[in-house]
C-alpha cells in the first residue's frame, strides 16, 4: 500500500484554508510552526529529541508500542511501520499516539464538546477520555493529523499548547466553583488568569520537568486538590476592619504524587489577589533557574522546595519577585472577573420534583448537588473510566444547550458536571441523560473508580489499571444500591505504575501496578495503598500495605470492605480503621483470598485484566512524562530552521522580499538562541541581539569554527547591516545560502558547547561567556 502524506492531504488543507483566518494569531503561529516542524522532521532536519519535546509541548504524547515492538504473549515481535522515521528517541513516526486537549479549570462549552466529538471520530477512535486533571485525551492519533486537529480546536478557543512536556500543565480548579455552598469566592476567573498569563510565557519554557497548578475555592473540600500540586492556591476571603472583604489565596508549593509523595508546604497564608500572578511568575522563574535539569527524577519543584527548605525557597522567590518589572496583566484580569459569573438559562425551581421513580431518587442522592443559588443544582454525569463516545458527547451537548448556558466542566474524578440545572427541569434532565446511558448513579462513590490509562495505552504501564477498574466497577455496581453508606462513599483509584497518574495515594483504597515473580513466572500485581484522603484538598496520603495479584483484587476488595463494615467503630472513617487495625493484621486476614495459585492449577492469574496475552513486562517503553530536556537554545535554533525553510519556500515562489527578510530573521533567531545560554531574557530587538552575540560569542571566540574561524559570523553581521536593503533575486539567493551556513555554524557551536569543548558554562546562571578564552 502506498503511504500518502497526511499532513498535506486535501482534508488537512481544507482546515488550514477555512480556519486559519479565524484563529488567534499567536495560536495560529504555534500551529503553523508545528506543521512546519513536522515537514522539517520528515526531511530529517530536526533531531528526534528536540522534535519529541516540541510535540509534547503541543500535547502530542507517545503511546504504548510506539518503539515498534509488541510482545504477543510468547515472544517479542516487530511492528513493521511503513517508514523508518522517528518522532522521538525510539518512537516510530507512524505509531499511534495520544493527544491531550487542555481544558483550563475543566470548562467546556457545548460547541467545544461537539468539535472534540468530531475529532474523536475523524482522527481517533470515537472515544473521548476525561483525565485526572480535567483534560480530554484522544488516543491512536497519527502525528500528521495533529495540525488539523489543533486548528479545529483553536477555532473554538481551545489550545493544546503545553498540555504535556516540561511546562505548565493544565490549570485545574474545583468543578463547582461559583456554585459551591462553601467556597470563599468563585476561583474560576483566577484560574483562567493563571492559565492565560503563563501560557507560552517566556519564564515557563525552561523547566526541568512539568509544573502543575491547582486552585481551590475552600480548604476543607476535596475538589481542588491543592495539597498534591506543584503550586496550590486556595481562596481566602479576609474581612477587613472597614467591613469590606479582601480576596486572596493561601499559597502552597512543592506538593506532589508520583513515586514519592510530598505534602505541599505553606508559602504564605494570604497572597492578595493582585499579587497572585506576580508571585506565581517569580516562583516559576526560581524553579526554572534553580530546579534540577539533568536528573529528571529529582527535577520537580517538590525536590527543590524540600532541598532548600521552604524558608530559603520563599526568600529566593520574594527576592525574584522584587526584581520583576511590573506587568499590567498582573491586575488587568481583575476587571474581567465578572465575565465568569454564570447565569442560568431557565428559571429557578422550587425543590427537586417528587416522583415515584426510585432510580431517579437514588441518582439524586449521589449525583445531584444543590447549589448555593436557590432552585438550582449541579448534576454529575458519571463516566465509566472517564470515557464517553462521540455520539454520546454530541447528545450531551444538546442536553446542555436545552437546559443550561454552557456551564459544563470536567472533573478530576473523570466525570462531567452540568451546572445551573433548574430543579424544575431535573427529572427531565435525568430522563434525557438516561436515553444516552449517562444517568448512572454513584458519582464520587465506590463505583466511580478513577483509573489512569495504564497498560492499555501508556508506555510505562506495568499492570492494567483500566482492566482492573472495569472489573471492580462491574462487580461493585451489582451491590451498590444495598451497600452500607460508609462503604458506598469510599473511593477507589487505580494507577498502572507508581507514577500515580490515577491519584491512588488520595483514595481510601488505592492500587498501583507492580509485577512480582511467583515460582519463576511474572505475575501482574498491584500494590495496595489504604487510607488516603481525598478530602481536605488531597489532605493525606495512603499507606502502602502490600502487593496483591491483579486477579485476586476483586476478592480482596470484597473481604476488605466486609472487614471494615464489621470492625469499624461508630463513625470511624476508613483511614482511622486502617490505622487502628494495622497493616499487618489486614494483610494477614486477606491472605486466604490473595494467594496466587500455581501456574498449572490456574493460569488465569498469569494473564492481566483486559488482556489475553500471558503477562510480561517487556512491552514497557521509555515514558514521556518528563518530556525531553531541550534548552532554550535548541528551541531557538529550531525556530531559525523553520524560518529558513519558509524563506526558501518564498524564494521558490518568487517572493524575493519575503525570502530575504526571512533569511535574515532566521539568522537573528539562531543568534538569539545561542545568546539564551547566558541570558534567557535577551530581547527581540535586532540591535541588542547583535550586540550580545558579538560580545558573548564573537569577541570571546566561542563561536569560531575550528576551520573557518569567524567567517560564518560575518554572514550574520553582513545580513544585519543590510537588513533594510531591497535585495534583487541574486542577492536574496546569496543571503539565503549564507543564512543556511550561519545556522549550521550555530548548531555546531551549540553542540561543541554542550559537549563542553568550550568549557563555557551552559545555563542561565552562567556568568557572561566573555571570560572564556578557549580557542575551540
Amino acid at each position: 500500500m502506498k503511504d500518502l502524506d497526511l499532513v498535506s492531504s486535501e482534508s488537512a488543507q481544507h482546515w488550514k484554508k477555512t480556519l486559519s483566518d479565524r484563529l488567534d494569531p499567536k495560536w495560529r503561529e504555534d500551529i503553523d510552526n508545528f506543521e512546519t516542524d513536522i515537514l522539517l522532521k520528515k526531511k530529517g532536519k530536526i533531531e528526534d529529541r528536540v522534535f519529541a519535546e516540541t510535540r509534547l509541548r503541543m500535547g502530542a504524547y507517545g503511546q504504548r508500542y510506539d518503539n515498534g515492538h509488541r510482545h504477543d504473549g510468547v515472544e517479542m515481535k516487530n511492528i513493521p511501520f511503513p517508514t523508518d522515521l522517528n518522532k522521538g528517541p525510539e518512537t516510530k513516526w507512524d505509531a499511534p499516539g495520544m493527544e491531550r486537549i487542555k481544558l483550563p479549570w475543566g470548562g467546556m462549552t457545548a460547541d467545544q464538546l461537539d468539535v472534540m466529538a468530531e475529532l474523536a471520530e475523524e482522527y481517533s477512535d470515537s472515544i473521548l477520555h476525561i483525565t485526572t486533571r480535567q483534560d480530554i485525551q484522544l488516543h491512536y492519533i497519527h502525528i500528521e493529523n495533529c495540525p488539523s486537529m489543533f486548528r479545529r480546536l483553536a477555532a473554538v478557543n481551545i489550545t493544546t499548547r503545553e498540555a504535556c512536556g516540561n511546562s505548565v500543565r493544565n490549570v485545574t480548579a474545583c468543578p463547582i466553583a461559583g456554585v459551591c455552598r462553601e467556597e470563599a469566592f468563585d476561583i474560576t476567573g483566577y484560574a483562567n488568569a493563571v492559565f492565560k498569563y503563563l501560557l507560552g510565557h517566556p519564564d515557563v519554557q525552561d523547566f526541568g520537568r512539568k509544573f502543575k497548578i491547582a486552585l481551590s475555592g475552600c480548604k476543607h473540600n476535596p475538589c481542588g486538590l491543592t495539597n498534591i500540586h506543584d503550586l496550590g492556591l486556595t481562596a481566602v476571603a479576609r474581612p477587613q476592619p472597614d467591613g469590606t472583604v479582601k480576596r486572596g489565596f493561601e499559597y502552597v508549593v512543592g506538593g506532589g504524587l508520583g513515586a514519592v509523595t510530598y505534602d505541599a508546604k505553606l508559602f504564605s497564608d494570604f497572597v492578595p489577589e493582585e499579587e497572585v500572578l506576580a508571585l506565581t511568575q517569580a516562583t516559576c522563574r526560581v524553579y526554572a533557574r534553580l530546579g534540577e535539569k539533568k536528573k529528571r527524577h529529582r527535577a520537580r519543584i517538590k525536590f527543590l522546595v524540600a532541598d532548600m527548605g521552604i524558608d530559603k525557597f520563599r526568600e529566593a522567590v520574594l527576592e525574584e519577585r522584587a526584581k520583576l518589572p511590573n506587568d499590567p496583566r498582573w491586575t488587568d484580569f481583575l476587571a474581567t472577573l465578572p465575565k465568569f459569573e454564570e447565569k442560568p438559562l431557565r428559571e429557578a425551581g422550587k425543590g427537586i420534583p417528587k416522583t415515584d421513580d426510585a432510580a431517579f431518587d437514588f441518582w439524586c442522592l449521589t449525583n445531584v448537588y444543590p447549589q448555593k443559588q436557590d432552585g438550582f443544582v449541579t448534576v454529575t454525569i458519571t463516566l465509566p473510566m472517564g470515557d464517553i463516545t462521540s455520539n454520546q458527547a454530541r447528545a450531551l451537548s444538546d442536553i446542555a444547550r436545552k437546559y443550561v448556558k454552557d456551564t459544563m466542566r470536567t472533573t478530576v474524578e473523570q466525570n462531567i458536571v452540568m451546572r445551573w440545572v433548574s430543579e424544575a427541569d431535573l427529572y427531565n434532565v435525568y430522563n434525557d441523560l438516561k436515553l444516552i446511558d449517562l444517568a448512572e448513579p454513584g458519582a464520587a462513590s465506590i463505583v466511580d473508580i478513577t483509573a489512569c490509562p495504564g497498560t492499555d495505552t501508556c508506555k510505562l504501564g506495568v499492570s492494567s489499571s483500566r482492566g482492573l477498574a472495569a472489573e471492580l466497577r462491574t462487580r461493585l455496581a451489582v451491590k451498590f444500591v444495598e451497600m452500607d453508606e460508609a462503604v458506598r462513599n469510599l473511593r477507589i483509584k487505580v494507577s498502572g505504575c507508581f507514577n500515580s497518574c490515577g491519584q491512588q495515594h488520595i483514595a481510601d483504597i488505592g492500587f498501583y501496578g507492580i509485577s512480582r515473580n511467583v515460582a519463576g513466572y511474572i505475575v501482574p500485581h498491584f500494590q495496595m495503598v489504604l487510607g488516603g484522603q481525598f478530602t481536605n484538598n488531597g489532605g493525606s496520603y495512603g499507606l502502602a500495605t502490600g502487593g496483591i495479584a491483579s486477579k485476586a483484587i476483586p476478592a480482596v476488595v470484597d473481604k476488605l470492605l466486609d472487614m471494615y463494615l464489621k470492625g469499624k467503630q461508630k463513625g470511624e472513617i476508613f483511614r482511622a480503621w486502617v490505622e487502628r487495625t494495622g497493616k499487618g493484621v489486614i494483610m494477614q486476614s486477606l491472605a486466604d483470598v490473595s494467594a496466587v495459585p500455581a501456574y498449572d492449577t490456574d493460569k488465569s492469574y498469569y494473564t492481566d485484566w483486559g488482556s489475553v496475552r500471558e503477562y510480561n513486562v517487556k512491552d514497557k517503553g521509555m515514558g514521556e512524562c518528563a518530556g525531553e530536556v531541550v534548552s532554550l537554545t535548541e528551541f531557538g535554533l529550531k525556530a531559525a530552521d523553520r524560518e529558513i525553510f519558509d524563506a526558501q519556500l518564498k524564494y521558490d515562489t518568487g517572493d524575493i522580499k519575503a525570502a530575504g527578510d526571512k533569511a535574515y530573521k532566521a539568522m537573528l533567531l539562531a543568534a538569539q538562541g545561542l545568546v539564551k545560554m547566558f541570558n534567557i531574557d535577551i530581547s527581540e530587538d535586532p540591535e541588542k541581539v547583535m550586540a550580545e552575540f558579538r560580545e558573548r560569542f564573537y569577541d570571546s571566540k566561542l563561536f569560531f569554527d575550528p576551520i573557518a574561524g569567524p567567517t560564518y559570523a560575518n554572514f550574520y553581521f553582513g545580513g544585519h547591516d543590510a537588513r533594510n536593503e531591497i535585495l534583487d533575486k541574486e542577492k536574496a539567493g546569496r543571503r539565503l545560502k549564507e543564512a543556511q551556513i550561519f545556522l549550521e555554524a550555530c548548531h555546531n557551536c551549540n553542540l561543541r558547547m554542550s559537549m563542553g569543548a568550550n568549557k563555557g558554562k551552559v545555563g542561565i546562571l552562567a556568568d557572561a561567556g566573555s571570560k572564556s578564552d578557549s580557542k575551540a
Partner: protein
Amino acid sequence: MNLQYLNWKIHLENPAQAEPDEWFKVLSTWIPDAPEIFIDVADYKHVPDGPVTLLVGHYVNYSLDATGRQLGLLYDYKHPMDGTNEEKIRSSLLGLLRVAKRLEDDAGFHAGKPKFKAGEIRFIVNSRAIAPNSPETLEAVKPDLVKVLEKAFGVGGFTLDRPADPRQRFSVDVTAKGTPVLADLIKRLA
C-alpha cells in the same frame, strides 16, 4: 471530489449473541504475524453508541461497533488512498467483506459466532472536510458508488438512503434486495 477515509459497516444478523470478550480474544489472535500492520486491541465495552472492541491497525481499524446503537463490523480506512474514487470504493468495500467473512469463519468464536447481514451495509466518509453530510455530496459520490454496488448486487439490486443529520458524517445506507451471500459479493468485487 477526491474521496478518502472511507469506512464501511456491515450489521450483525445476531447482535444479541455478540460477546465483546470473544471478539477481544479473536481479534488479538489476528495481530501476530499478520500481513497487515496491527497495533493492539482496545476494549470499550463499558460505553454505548460507539466502538465496543477495536483492533487498531496502521492503515485500517476493524471493530465490533455499536455506533447508532446498531451492532456490526466497522471497517475504518485511515490513510489517504491512491486511485480513482470508484477504485477506492471498490477496494474498501471488498476489504470490509473479506474481514466479515474471516470473522464468520474464525474458529475462535463459540457462543457469539458472528453472522453478518450481507444485504445491509453502510458507507461512511470519515472526513467532514471532504464530504459534508449534504445532498450535494450524495450527488457527487453516487455515480461511483452505484457502479461498485451494481457490481456487487446487480443493476437495480439495492436502494440507497442518506441519513440527514448534518452533524453526523456523510453516510449512505445500502439495502440490497433479496438476501445476498458474503462469498458471492466478494467474488464479484475481487
